């Protein structure tokens, strides 16, 4: 199976603009509103999410195709013939994905602390929050079962990476908007979160302009 650059490019454009995880698919809204008060924090969070999302899509793809799916590729199939016949997709998918993500986040945190203390200092506080970021679990689920077509491992990983970039883009834009919103003289009841939601609505409207650019 050769690498099809066209498909990869379509996936990237689709994940960043057309189906932006935050503004079109409503994934990862908690950090989107929680961490978007300053541009620095937004960039840190975005980088941490991109990093974990890329690794998590690859790891969950391997788990899905070699452990959970029934068939000859199942590595438990040679030991337990029953597993090769029925697979464990339905019952174990959610639990195994969330455990993989939690373990990955822990691993990334430990490795980063040891190898790159400077990067750890800037991203460290955002890492634990990522475990419960639904964008990561959402990308993992979209990269395997609910994808429109069966993705290869490279495509799934690229989709995870591009999804992270799209998340960072939305977060950065939002933080830029919010830094200016503070200066406005708004009605009292709109201050803080409500006006942030309404600005997000305008941004989502703008991102809808990208729909139809690629069909994926």
């Amino acid at each position, binding site marked *: 199976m050769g690498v099809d650059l066209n498909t990869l490019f379509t996936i990237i454009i689709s994940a960043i603009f057309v189906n932006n995880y935050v*503004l*079109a*698919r*409503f*994934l*990862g*809204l*908690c950090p989107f*509103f929680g961490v978007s008060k300053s541009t620095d924090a937004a960039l840190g969070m975005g980088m941490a999410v991109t990093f974990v999302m890329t690794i998590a899509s690859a790891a969950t793809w391997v788990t899905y195709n070699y452990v959970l799916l029934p068939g000859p590729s199942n590595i438990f199939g040679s030991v337990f013939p029953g597993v090769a016949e029925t697979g464990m997709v*339905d*019952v*174990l*998918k*959610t*639990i195994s*994905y*969330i*455990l993989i993500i*939690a373990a990955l986040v822990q691993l990334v945190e430990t490795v980063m602390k040891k190898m790159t203390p400077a990067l750890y200092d800037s991203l460290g506080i955002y890492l634990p929050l990522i*475990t*419960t*970021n*639904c964008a990561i*679990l*959402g990308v993992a*689920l*979209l990269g395997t079962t*609910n994808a429109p077509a069966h993705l290869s491992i490279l495509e799934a990983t690229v989709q995870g990476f591009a999804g992270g970039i799209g998340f960072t883009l939305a977060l950065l834009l939002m933080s830029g908007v919010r830094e200016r919103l503070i200066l406005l003289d708004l009605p*009292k*009841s*709109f*201050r803080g*979160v*409500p*006006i*942030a*939601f*309404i600005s*997000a*609505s*305008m941004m*989502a*409207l703008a*991102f*809808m302009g990208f729909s139809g650019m690629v069909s994926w």
Partner: protein
Amino acid sequence: MNKEHTIIQEFTKGLFAHNPLFVALLGMCPSLAVTTSVRNGLAMGMAVILVITLSNVLISLIRNQIPKAVRIPCFIVVIAAFVTMVELLMKAYLPPEINESLGIFIPLIVVNCVIMYRAEDFASKHGVFRSAIDGIGMGAGFTLALATLSTIREAIGVGTILGVKISETYQPASVMIMAPGAFLGLGLLLAYFNWRRLRKGEKA
């Protein structure tokens, strides 16, 4: 945390005073994604009520056995197990089009902050009965919020409520059932609740 609530108060605090969506701003992702129609909103609400009640009961039962340092992973595994059960139940008994439109948001209940919040803040500190009541109350409050938001979005965006037409001549503004309408609807609702709270504060 307030001192001793009565059982009734334990239930109603989730509905209004501590409503998970409108007051605590938790569980936003599913609330915005599934509220395109009232039926979807209610189905999601039911799933959350089931998961939050069952996980509150189980976590409250094992709260003294879990070591403090690993409590979060334990909670996640308990919640994920119940979510899987509810997902399989819904696939078996609900019409396929509801499952289709809820899509990945059923497995994503695992990372719904409302459930984690109640597990950490309430069920790990209180008895089984109170935890169950708290779970039902919080779940009902979340369902109420979903129903409110989805009624508004469906009425403006499609011109129907639960599939019944509201007016013969109304031209639906379909932007309300797309992504921007979700943010706009919730933003205006939050502003309304802020406005009511501010007015109450001025009177008192």
